[in-house]
């Protein structure tokens, strides 16, 4: 197996006149967890589908597991595990039947599938639902089943498109915990998400995508160091009293963001700034000091306006 799991250069996807992915470059190395962050419509899913060899590349270079998806799609897909944005389970069939049919698509013998199903259901905590129909399962269970399904061929690369969107916190934690374990076992993961805290914990490296392009690349820690400060000070004022405050705190922080409901001060020395704010006679209703997160990087790079 080549040293690089996914290699993209100038990778482009067009749908008619619309360019969904606009000439991006990245590499994914064996055993790493690689993340695509970005608002809706940034081109994350299109990129995932090209890597998954289910969407032809419009332009540029792409190699997945050392092969060209344009000519070796089936060979690539036989070594991939895919967790799509929608579960695409057959709700009429049982948990077991869903895994069996999917395993058979990889031409695995039934005996091998049965062994793996037992392990996989144990791994995603669905063993006691083996014979149940999929339809009545909760969203979190269906998601876990979809993850189990993606693992049935013991893939070299697992692609997960927003694996936790729409799940409640418990289900979300369970999913991320399982992904973390897969990573520990050496499975290469490529994940898209807009849950920053999850990305921060799981991803060794990530790229922030915006409007089809890569806006930034690095480890979560590097990105925070590069694009935001160590800490963020959030000040809230009583109704109407925030007007003009942004000017009065000028110079106190590296960057000040004046939001409708609060004022954000990006600084490496938050305690010092808090003291100076008091010195300047400002009286915020509440003062919160927090560590900067990827979310701050994300918003910095992709803006605060809603993407529809």
């Amino acid at each position: 197996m080549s040293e690089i799991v996914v290699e993209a250069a100038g990778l482009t996807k067009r749908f008619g006149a619309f360019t969904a992915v606009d000439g991006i470059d990245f590499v994914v190395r064996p055993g790493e967890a690689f993340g695509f962050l970005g608002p809706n419509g940034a081109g994350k899913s299109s990129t995932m589908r090209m890597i998954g060899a289910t969407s032809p590349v419009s332009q540029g270079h792409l190699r997945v597991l050392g092969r060209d998806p344009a000519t070796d799609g089936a060979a690539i897909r036989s070594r991939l595990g895919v967790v799509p944005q929608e579960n695409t389970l057959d709700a009429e069939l049982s948990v077991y039947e869903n895994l069996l049919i999917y395993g058979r698509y990889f031409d695995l013998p039934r005996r091998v599938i049965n062994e793996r199903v037992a392990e996989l259901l144990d791994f995603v905590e669905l063993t006691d639902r083996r014979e149940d129909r999929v339809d009545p399962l909760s969203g979190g269970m269906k998601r876990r089943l979809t993850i189990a399904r993606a693992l049935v061929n013991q893939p070299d690369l697992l692609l997960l498109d927003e694996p936790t969107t729409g799940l409640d916190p418990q289900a979300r934690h369970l999913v991320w915990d399982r992904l973390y374990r897969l990573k520990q076992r050496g499975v290469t993961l490529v994940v898209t998400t807009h849950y920053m805290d999850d990305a921060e914990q799981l991803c060794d490296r990530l790229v922030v995508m915006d409007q089809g392009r890569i806006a930034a690349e690095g480890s979560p820690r590097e990105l925070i160091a590069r694009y935001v400060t160590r800490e963020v000070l959030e000040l809230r004022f009583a109704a109407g009293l925030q007007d003009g405050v942004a000017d009065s705190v000028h110079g106190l922080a590296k960057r000040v963001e004046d939001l409708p409901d609060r004022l954000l001060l990006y600084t490496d020395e938050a305690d010092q700034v808090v003291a100076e704010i008091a010195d300047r006679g400002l009286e915020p209703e509440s003062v919160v000091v927090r560590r900067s997160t990827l979310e701050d990087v994300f918003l910095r790079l992709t803006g605060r306006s809603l993407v529809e």
Partner: protein
Amino acid sequence: MSAPVLRVLEAHARTYRRTWMGSVVTTFLNPILFLLAMGVGLGALVDRGVGGAALGGFGYLEFLAPGLLAATAMQTAAADSAFPVRARIKWVKTYHAALATPVSARDLVVGHLCWVALRLVLAASVFALVMTAFGATGPAGGALAVLPAVLTGMAFAPPITAIAAGGSSDYGLSSLFRFGIVPLFLFSGTFFPISQLPAPLQPVAVVTPLWHGVELARAAALGSAPAWPPLAHGAYLVAWLLVGAAVAVRVFDRKLVR
């Protein structure tokens, strides 16, 4: 047949194990009800009238049964290829799941068509048994008529699969039955010879695959001579199958691999 096609076929069979109840009623009960009502009930009146000569010397039940066999095959193929295909692409999206594996869009189409063919063999065989039991044909004629019936269904399955995959309006897909399948069922020589149709409509009936299937099935069951040479009827149906399948593969590719 390639391995992925077989795996798709297998998935169909496994899914069918969960949903076979509904189709058993249509497969077994409908032919009996139709033959009773139209063949025996209505047929008694037809045979008392001018029937005999216009129907090539056969009783109405004998005339009707093979036509109904072919028409039922068309309906089975249409029912299996319209909403189920739409569902696997648009609602449950199991085709999307399959395409993430080594299975290709072409495998999905071919696997689906093979599955429909199996279903047709089963449904047509049951119908032929019922026909024989009613005395509408001899056992040999009934067995011979199965092939043209399956071929009729297979002429319809690919284009309907393509329409179900390509379109997005669910109302439109229902209209296919209302304005396509039902008129064909009634006016393609199943219940009366197309010579009874107004002259301008006769060529329309000739263009549709069902008329060819009805002619072939009737010839097989009754040993009568069809309107065209049997090979010509057969070739016409096979052409619909092949062209339709090629179109369906293209539509699947455009819709699912993009």
